[in-house]
């Protein structure tokens, strides 16, 4: 066994090691770049979706705003919800007072090809705002879901999809509440509701009952039966449209069952055929 060679190996490699080790350690001192550790920590505790729901251009920008004290509201991140807000508060050494109820989006319209009337056949770019610029969409109802999926395109987490009727539906489990779909929806059919909401009124039309009846068989006709069936509260018909009062936690089944056009429906994952 050639021990001298082993020695050479030992010397050269360890020599290299010591030179590089010292060199790097030294260099890291010279070239040290000051980093805002707090900001980095804040950034790490944000979900990193860069969805912009907080109003900043992505998570790092929000983190920067918090770290620099420009923004004191720690609850702006709706995807992260309470957990993130708590983490942020902990990092900033503040106590979080407001508790957030997670909000999710849902489409308040069930008027599909069979159930509602159309003014014309839309053939252009598949985009709701494009259709809305032409006589406010191809449907007679000007408050309805146009079904061209602009919300699907902007959803950062694929929570929205077409259902069997060519309308969209939000999966509330996947929804992070970034409100992008609400922003993009031209008719206002997409609205935010609390995650805990068990029912929604799947109609957005403020036309009079008679008018709605003419163009849609599943629209709210403002008959006020829901109000009567749920006398302690829970429903409120305003401006010819029934609204659910989500602060009321009682049962809504009887009202939903009694709705003559069946537009009060459960907010649950919806069958997706497409």
């Amino acid at each position, binding site marked *: 066994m050639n021990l001298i060679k082993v020695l050479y190996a030992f010397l050269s490699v360890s020599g290299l090691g010591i030179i*590089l*080790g010292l060199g*790097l350690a030294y260099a890291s001192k010279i070239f040290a770049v000051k980093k805002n550790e707090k900001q980095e920590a804040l950034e790490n505790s944000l979900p990193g979706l860069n969805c912009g729901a907080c109003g900043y251009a992505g998570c790092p920008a929000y983190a920067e705003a918090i770290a620099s004290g420009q923004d004191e509201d720690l609850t702006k991140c709706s995807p992260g919800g309470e957990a993130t807000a708590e983490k942020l508060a902990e990092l900033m050494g503040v106590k979080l007072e407001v508790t957030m109820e997670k909000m999710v989006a849902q489409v308040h319209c069930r008027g599909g090809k069979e159930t509602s009337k159309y003014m014309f056949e839309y053939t252009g770019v598949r985009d709701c705002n494009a259709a809305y610029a032409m006589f406010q969409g191809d449907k007679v109802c000007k408050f309805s879901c146009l079904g061209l999926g602009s919300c699907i395109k902007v959803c950062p987490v694929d929570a929205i999809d077409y259902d069997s009727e060519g309308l969209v539906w939000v999966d509330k489990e996947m929804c992070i509440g970034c409100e992008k779909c609400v922003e993009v929806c031209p008719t206002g059919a997409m609205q935010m509701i609390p995650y805990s909401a068990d029912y929604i009124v799947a109609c957005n039309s403020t036309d009079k009952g008679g008018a709605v009846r003419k163009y849609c068989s599943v629209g709210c006709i403002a008959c006020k039966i829901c109000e009567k069936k749920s006398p302690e509260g829970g429903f409120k018909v305003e401006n010819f449209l029934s609204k659910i009062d989500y602060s009321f936690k009682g049962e809504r089944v009887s009202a939903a069952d009694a709705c003559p056009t069946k537009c009060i429906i459960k907010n*649950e*994952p919806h069958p997706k055929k497409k």
Partner: protein
Amino acid sequence: MIEHFTKGLFKENPIFIIVLGLCPTLAVSTQVVNALGMGAGVIFVLLGSNFFVSLLRNFIPEKIRIPSYIVIIASFVTMVDLFMQAYAPTLSKNLGVFVQLIVVNCIILGRAEAFAKNHTVSESVLDALGMGIGFTLGLLLISLIREVLGAGTITLFPFGNFDGVIRIPVIYNAPIRVIGLATGALLVIGYLKGFFDWMAIRKKKREIEKRVSAVKV
């Protein structure tokens, strides 16, 4: 505990799911026997490096983390290289420079950095085994496809009268040679990855459907 081992096989298969360690994967996947040899080499190095990195995780300072890992890995690689040259010369010749390049195989450094650095020795060893075997399986799949289509053969170890080469009847006479070349390697892994992604998408869809039907009932 056991999931540290099994996850490497399929759920986090280094080749198809996390797409690491591709350079050797593609270059040596011309013959099945190379894939096996390479796989063995990688498993050995991965085991060694994960073991030592995890063992020394409190000893190595953050600043020289990467150089230290590299030294550890490079030592094992050199051992593999020397042993292969000595005892498996044909394989060593076929694998060429890629044995030495195991050093920079992203999966090894990747595991050291992502796993062994903050797990116990036994966990790290299991992880190394799982990842190594997962890597070998992936490599085997690619090389099988490439060799069968690209050369019409399956090359294994010779023993006895058997020269180690299985010849596939029809393809052997007119193999799709491009599959055996660089193009084929890239295409095969592209399509395999596409296939696995498709499986993942389908699985996700199934899950959603399941949930939907559960709610309905």
